[in-house]
């Protein structure tokens, strides 16, 4: 079926063509179960039983390796905190395994969605074809570049964190230390999965922007058209008047004159737009700043339009309401379809995003807290040894937060782009200044108002800047709580130590060691990670 349609719209290249390298890598590390050959030959994602088995095998292998890592590096912790309480054990376990949970969520979700992801890209291709019919061509090559940049950055970050930690902080004389490489697997897999999501989201955003651009272009050509009409009219009388940007008061006055002269503006349709043209001079003023605060540059439009205005015959689609209605309707439908695709995509990735956000929050807090602990020369769990070095911590934090923030930012931008379409549509209405077109625009903008694309994590919270603010506030308050209690614990510990040094009898020393242990559980509450069940 894809073949049949490709002849009809040969110029539309499928989005997935750009995903070649990403798919290859994802396939090898076991993120996507889909068939590799079919993807190579036809750019489709299809279910594959072998891929599924391969993925499950990789999942099991990763989980096993990670557990071996935790076990072997837990040796150091075991001697250190032999007397930890169960609570700290549980929390530590959770912090240790959150990476693994995240990876498992990603892989299992990919397995569950393996049929539906292909469908999603098929829908995007339909949208592309429809956009192509509306003479709105999309350039997918930027997406390919984006993927390569993101892949490169992922590899640089992972490698730098891994190598720096390995060289500086791991005892690499033992052969077991090679296992440390495994610690990078969950984050790497997670990042690859998120690149899929981010790039697809970016593609959707581009499509929204293409729709907006098409609408803006309609406005621009119509302005040229009107200028051309007027220039034609006024060329004989006053050539210098339209060579520069027309002064606003002048046209306003013209408008007033016409109004006062009893000309019925409403009845003058777009068909005879030369008489109605004066009114539209208001448009650049009214829209010199859109509601998103971005200035619309009137000067370069004016610069473009003037040289062309004199020597070209212009046609404006906005002049023909019946024809343009069809086009606007189609654009609206495509907009709705993109919104629906966005919703479907969000649903497919909702659990991975939730786990990523939980991971980001926990790891960010823990890493900063351990950094504090390390500066106070307290012991920290061995899996978080990167916190001993501030530079590595900075890199790791920027990597983790970059992932989360980029996703949130992109989701936010996409929903903003989808909302901008209404503004662009209204510009069409304003510039054409035609009753019939106004009606159409009003009708369609009501529809656009109801096309909502909001990205959320399972409905628990939306992905926008507000959430980002909330999360950073949460991290700060947790850090303050943790550090305060850590300080209190330190004080208690010091008190006990002075006490034990004062009464240096054998029995009391024993008791003091006990106390030392019990108070150290305070900062162990989050600190601890690994313990054997016997501990």
């Amino acid at each position: 079926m894809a073949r049949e349609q490709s002849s009809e719209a040969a110029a539309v290249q499928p989005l997935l063509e750009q995903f070649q390298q990403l798919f290859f890598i994802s396939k090898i590390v076991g993120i996507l179960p889909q068939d590799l050959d079919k993807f190579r030959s036809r750019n489709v994602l299809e279910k594959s039983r072998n891929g599924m088995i391969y993925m499950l095998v990789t999942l099991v292998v990763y989980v096993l390796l990670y557990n071996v890592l935790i076990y072997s590096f837990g040796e150091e912790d075991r001697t250190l905190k032999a007397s930890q309480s169960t609570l700290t054990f549980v929390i530590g376990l959770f912090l240790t395994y959150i990476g693994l949970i995240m990876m498992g969520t990603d892989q299992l979700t990919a397995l569950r969605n393996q049929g539906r992801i292909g469908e999603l890209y098929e829908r995007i291709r339909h949208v592309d074809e429809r956009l192509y019919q509306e003479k709105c061509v999309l350039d997918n090559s930027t997406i390919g570049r984006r993927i390569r940049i993101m892949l490169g950055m992922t590899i640089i970050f992972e490698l730098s964190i891994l190598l720096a930690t390995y060289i500086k902080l791991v005892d690499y004389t033992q052969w077991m230390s090679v296992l440390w490489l495994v610690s990078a697997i969950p984050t790497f897999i997670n990042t690859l999965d998120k690149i899929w999501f981010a790039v697809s989201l970016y593609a959707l955003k581009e499509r929204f922007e293409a729709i907006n651009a098409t609408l803006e272009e309609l406005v621009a050509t119509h302005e040229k058209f009107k200028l051309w009409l007027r220039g034609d009219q006024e060329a004989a009388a006053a050539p210098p008047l339209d060579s520069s940007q027309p002064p606003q008061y002048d046209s306003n006055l013209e408008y007033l004159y016409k109004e006062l002269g009893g000309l019925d503006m409403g009845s003058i349709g777009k068909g005879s737009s030369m008489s109605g043209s004066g009114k539209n001079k208001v448009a650049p003023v009214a829209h010199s700043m859109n509601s998103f605060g971005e200035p619309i540059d009137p000067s370069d439009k004016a610069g473009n339009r003037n040289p062309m205005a004199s020597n070209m015959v212009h046609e404006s689609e906005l002049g023909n309401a019946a024809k343009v209605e069809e086009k606007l309707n189609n654009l609206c439908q495509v907009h709705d379809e993109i919104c629906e695709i966005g919703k479907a995509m969000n649903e497919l990735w909702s659990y991975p995003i939730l786990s990523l956000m939980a991971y980001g929050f926990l790891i960010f807090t823990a890493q900063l807290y351990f950094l504090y602990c390390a500066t106070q020369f307290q012991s920290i769990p061995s899996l978080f040894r990167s916190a001993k070095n501030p530079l590595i911590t900075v890199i790791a934090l920027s990597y983790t937060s970059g992932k989360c923030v980029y996703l949130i930012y992109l989701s936010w931008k996409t929903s903003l782009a989808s909302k901008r379409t209404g503004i662009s549509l209204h510009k069409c209405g304003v510039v054409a200044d035609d009753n019939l077109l106004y009606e159409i625009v009003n009708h369609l903008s009501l529809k656009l108002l109801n096309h909502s694309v909001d990205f959320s994590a399972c409905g628990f919270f939306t992905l926008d800047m507000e959430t980002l603010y909330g999360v950073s506030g949460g991290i700060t308050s947790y850090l303050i709580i943790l550090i305060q209690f850590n300080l209190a614990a330190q004080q208690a510990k010091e008190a006990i130590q002075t006490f034990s040094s004062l009464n240096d009898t054998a029995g009391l020393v024993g008791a003091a060691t006990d106390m030392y242990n019990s108070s150290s559980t305070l900062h162990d509450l989050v600190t601890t990670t690994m313990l054997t069940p016997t501990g």
Partner: protein
Amino acid sequence: MSPNTWVIEMPSQKSCSHPYPRRISPYRTPSLNRDAFTRDSPAAATSGPSTRSHNHPVFEDIRTILSVLKASGLMPIYEQVSNYEVGPPTKTNEFYSFFVRGVVHALTIFNVYSLFTPISAQLFYSYRETDNVNQWIELLLCILTYTLTVFVCARNTKSMLRIMNEILQLDEEVRKQFGANLNQNFGFSVKFLVGIAACQTYIIVLKIYAVDGVITPPSYILLAFYAVQNGLTATYIVFASALLRIVYIRFHFINQLLNGYTYGQQQKRKGGGGGGRRHRGNGQHHPTPNPAIMEHFPEDSLFIYRMHNKLLRIYKGINDCCNLILVSFLGYSFYTVTTNCYNLFVQITAKGMVSPNILQWCFAWLCLHVSLLALLSRSCGLTTREANATSQILSRVYASSREYQNIIDKFLTKSIKQEVQFTAYGFFAIDNSTLFKIFSAVTTYLVILIQFKQLEDSKVEDPEPDQT
């Protein structure tokens, strides 16, 4: 076809003798709708509503839960006037409800009395002072919530009946118009009832086993009434969720109806008829409904708008009725979840003396409250989303004629600022994000509480008190 035919026809059809007054159209067979909205056996689906006996009880789906609530005086024991109407309760039934409520209040007073006197001291056997206080507060909160529930229910008897009548009226109209019976399997309510009962009995048994010595009768009464209060409050929450689910099904019905007119479906219809320009239907995501014929749009849309308005009113009515109850329940549940999590952690971390009794007790409470919270927020969220989806679906209807466009515009304009929300007394909206907020708040409190406890423990063990 005049767009208003059905409005004129309506009053004459009151007798319900002829269930399909308008049309049995080729594109919308009754069985289609029934397939979409009923889960009962296909035999019943084909027989249609006309074969049903006249005196089948209304709200059959939630009969069990209603009977429990009726018996406990929370719901009026209404009279069924016809298949689609309920009447106010008879004098004796009203008296019965009144009597039950009186007994409840008397017991409450007795319980509060025994809570403040040493009679109940043996129930608070716990090993630490703070735990006793916690349990105390929990008991008081429970009593408060239930008393509030009883009061609010007693006050809202009339509006509850009105809501029920409105729902029934709506059903009647739907049945006349489309021959669809909007029933659904409310198995979840019965499951929850059984679960609540089991949980409460389990908790009581645990409690009785935990108390050493002979339990005095007042303590027995206190415990039993405590369990009953908890159970009934929980039942009321389940009932509210079931009501919301009922509203959700109605919203879903009109959305499905409207979905037949969306451009995706229309294109599919044209494509099926043999060749529109765009032959690929892009409505893979709405596979269920058949595309409707555009000519029916004016009358259907009028009907849908009316239904939507009525449903919104019902939704608001339900919200008004259980507003206060929800607030107090959420507060109570928040407190219980926090204290139980805390107890659980204390039990786990306490070295050596893990008592399985308290562990089970905490787990039972946590299960009960978390599942109730999840149920409530889920049904609220679902219903709100479905109510808001109507305008979104309508915006997908692309009509060529100006007249139809105006119909669409009217509804869309109306719904611009109409934010449908289920609120807890206006304090906050209840949906999935509420669940998230509650749990994040619980986590924060837990971290603080546990930290304090550990600090306290280390201070207690510290023999030198002057170090601060």
